[in-house]
């Protein structure tokens, strides 16, 4: 469980990491003829970076502490 401040820092960092991972210069680097297990390197890179980002995002989300009063039921709702 991480406090709000920590979660904020981690979220920002992860967002920056994601922006970096999907930035065109990196894609150009992977735009080669090479293949990984028969899959062109660009596709392999993009999908694996995506998987890593999702996994990190999951870790972050599950460690974030739900702050107090997170669930305010709207009045008069069933």
């Amino acid at each position, binding site marked *: 469980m991480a406090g709000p401040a920590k*979660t*904020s820092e981690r979220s920002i960092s992860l967002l920056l990491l*994601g922006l970096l991972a999907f930035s065109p210069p990196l894609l*150009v680097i992977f*735009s080669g003829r090479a293949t990984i297990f028969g899959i062109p390197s660009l596709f392999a890179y993009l999908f694996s970076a995506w998987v890593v980002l999702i996994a990190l*995002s999951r870790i972050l989300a599950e460690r974030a502490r739900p702050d107090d009063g997170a669930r*305010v039921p709207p009045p008069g*709702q069933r």
Partner: protein
Amino acid sequence: MLKGWIILLASIAYLCILFAITYYGDKRADRGRSLIANPYIYALSIAVYCTSWTFYGSVGRAAASGIDFLTIYLGPTLTFVAWWFVLRKILRISKAHRITSIADFIASRYGKSTVLGGLVTVIAVVGIMPYISLQLKAVSTSFRLLLEYPAIVMPKTEYVPHFLGDTALLVAGCMAAFSILFGTRHIDASEHHEGMVAAIAFESIVKLIAFLAVGVFVTFGLYGGFGDLFAKAAARPDLAKLFVVDSGAYGQWITLTVLSMAAIICLPRQFQVTVVENVDEDHLRKAVWLFPLYLLAINIFVLPIAFAGMMQFPGGNVDADTFVLTVPMAAKQEGLALFAYIGGLSAATAMVIVATVALSTMVCNDLVMPVLLRIRAFRLHEKGDLSGLLLAIRRGSIIGIIMLGYLYFRFIGESVTLVSIGLVSFAAAAQFAPAIIGGIYWRGATRRGALAGLSSGFLVWAYTLLLPSFARSGWLPIDFVAHGPFGMTLLRPYELFGLGGVDHMTHALFWSMLTNIGLYVAVSLFSRQGAIERIQAALFVDVFRWSGERGSQFWRGTATVSDLQALVARFIGNRQADRAFGEYAKGRKINLSKMPEADAQLVNFAERLLAGAIGAASARVMVSTVAKAEIISIDEVMKILDETSQVIEYSHQLEEKGRELEQATTELREANARLQELDRLKDDFLSTVSHELRTPLTSIRSFTEILHDNPDLALGERERFLGIIAKESERLTRLINQTLDLAKMEAGRMEWQMERLNPKAVVEDAAAAVGGLFEERGVRLEVQLPFRLPMVYADRDRLMQVLVNLLSNAADFCDEANGRVVVWGSAKQDQITIGVTDNGSGMPKSAQKQIFEKFQQADTARRGRTGGTGLGLSICRQIVEHFGGEIGVESRLGEGAQFIFHLPTAAAVERAGAKGGQRHPLSQLIPAAGKRLRIRKKNEVPAE
């Protein structure tokens, strides 16, 4: 064979299943056992993002330009990664304010502005129109393709199937009917459509499985897996170029990523499922990774299908947007083709249903109702139950919106690829982003700023994307695109102000965002906020600080309870209103029937209840008709806001200060206890001293009196008496000297002549000094010192005083017969040890502890005989401790005593001195207080 009726039957059966799910979901919701109260359904419902665009269009895009179709899914992933900052906050605000749509959200933030809500609605309807046409196009195209099975014939624009008339119109009609069935069955107080959400989640599963089924068939059925497929594609130069991105595509890649990052929040239907339909904020936590995972899964086979399609249909006469369908058809997989068609249908229906429900809510709440309420001729205020009217407006607007989409498709969209149609909508939705993001983080953003930004952004969008599409379809002269309006080349819509060389989307995004953000910021900076605006701004920006009910403190409303309840009932129905008010009363343990006047809280509650049905802006207007709810003055508002934020700030500081104070108090208390103890010791000391002084004084006085009263006393007697007087005076002097010494030392006023000394010399001098005394007593004194002792840092006279004191003490306690005293020394590491050992009577264990205290002597009876004052050892201890050493005694009764003291060597003292400075005498006197309170001057000690 796939007959027309089979396809039709399958479609209708599928839609019936959907409707059954909706119906069941709503029933469950009514009974309070929500079907959608789990994060998985929530994540699947967000996947309404994947429409026909994803299902058919991605493959088309991939076939045309390779990997960049993926940006549309990477963008939302990034936005969800940043959920903590954006989505979570929007969700919390929307829950607190019962937001019903994106127009409601923006209108609420900027002072519940009806104008702004209307503008957002117009932008949304116009902007989403192409997107809906995309779905219609995809469904009708796929239907007509399937109809031709086993032949693969691209439907021609002018082609009209003979028995169904215009397919797209038919599809549009069906969609409208289903949207009305799904979304507007009744007016819900909270604008939740649980049944619809359940159906959407089901559709997300269907389209994912259908797409994966086609993908698996193509990759592993037609080819030998990914490697085989990619290898075969790589062999063809026209496909191989799709394997890479060339550096010229930077702009497009970034544009698409930014657009889709904004779209996942700003598209009205995404806002609807993600924010409005959310039942539990905690679900977001799982959805933030489940939804991107869904996006990833549905994209795995896009490239394989695209490459397979291009290899299967090398002529280029089959539209790549249809590969998902045509590749299984070409492989004679009629079952799979039908399943793919159903998958595409589910993708399209999900989008159309949610989008039209969201848009119709906006049209009703933010466009039509405010107008109706304003026009007095309708006398809407006086009408009874309005929930029927609300439903009618919504149903009408659903039909209208879908028809707009149909018209766009019919006149413009037929010749354009799916993705390029959809992107136009994305660009329109992205216009909301500055007003939303700015609205939740920038307190100073004003209504005028939002109005200026939104309207200018929308106009630029229309000019650079919408109008050219009209022109290209022949509805405007094509010269408009080629040479600009009236031949003004500077205003060419695809190269505005000469910005050429970039793709249309980047171009439009640049100009629209430039004006949108530019005007939003600039106008906000130079315009003032109204009172409601300020309140709403504060409530939005600081949503985590204010709890849900906070808004009420800004209103002073008066209305009767029955008026309020009647008002609410007119919009959401009697039964629902009764229940809501009942729960309100129960929650606060009040009896509404005994409360004729509604307080501000209840007025606020009614307004929020109403906002759930008709939007914040309209609710404001309606409540004001029955409640004289007026906002308290702006000064007061600012006071409350400022006070509260200051109070929070202060309380943090106070907490900090409180902790410091507590610590200081503890220290003070300790110091005080220590000082009280010292005070008591001082009193004891004084009384002891006066007692000790009295003894010799009494003796002197009595002998003086005897001498005075008996002048004829014999000479021998007289001399003996005078001797006693002299001895007692001497003792008195010594006592006073020692007392003064001790007091000086304790107070730290003693003047010390600290220097480097050879202890051996001092010991030898001391032994020589007391030599006479020992001889007189007949006690033997031995000095056993090593050849060399390290230097110490001390005051020579004081060290001498210690040694003399210890030696004379030893002499006093020895028997005269075979008394023997040894003074010895040794050195170890950083300290030297000097001991004085005698073979006298010794002392009991209990006495050893006290012997260094003042006026404590091991054998009181002997005091008179030896002339000891009881202060000598006390002084010794003070001196030794001042030198940084310690003193102690070891003894057993009858076996003599051994006084030992250790002193640090000069080298050790200098080392320590370099580190921390010399110990201050005060710190020995009051260790606790001296250290922590940093009393620097001895004069400040109250004990003095």
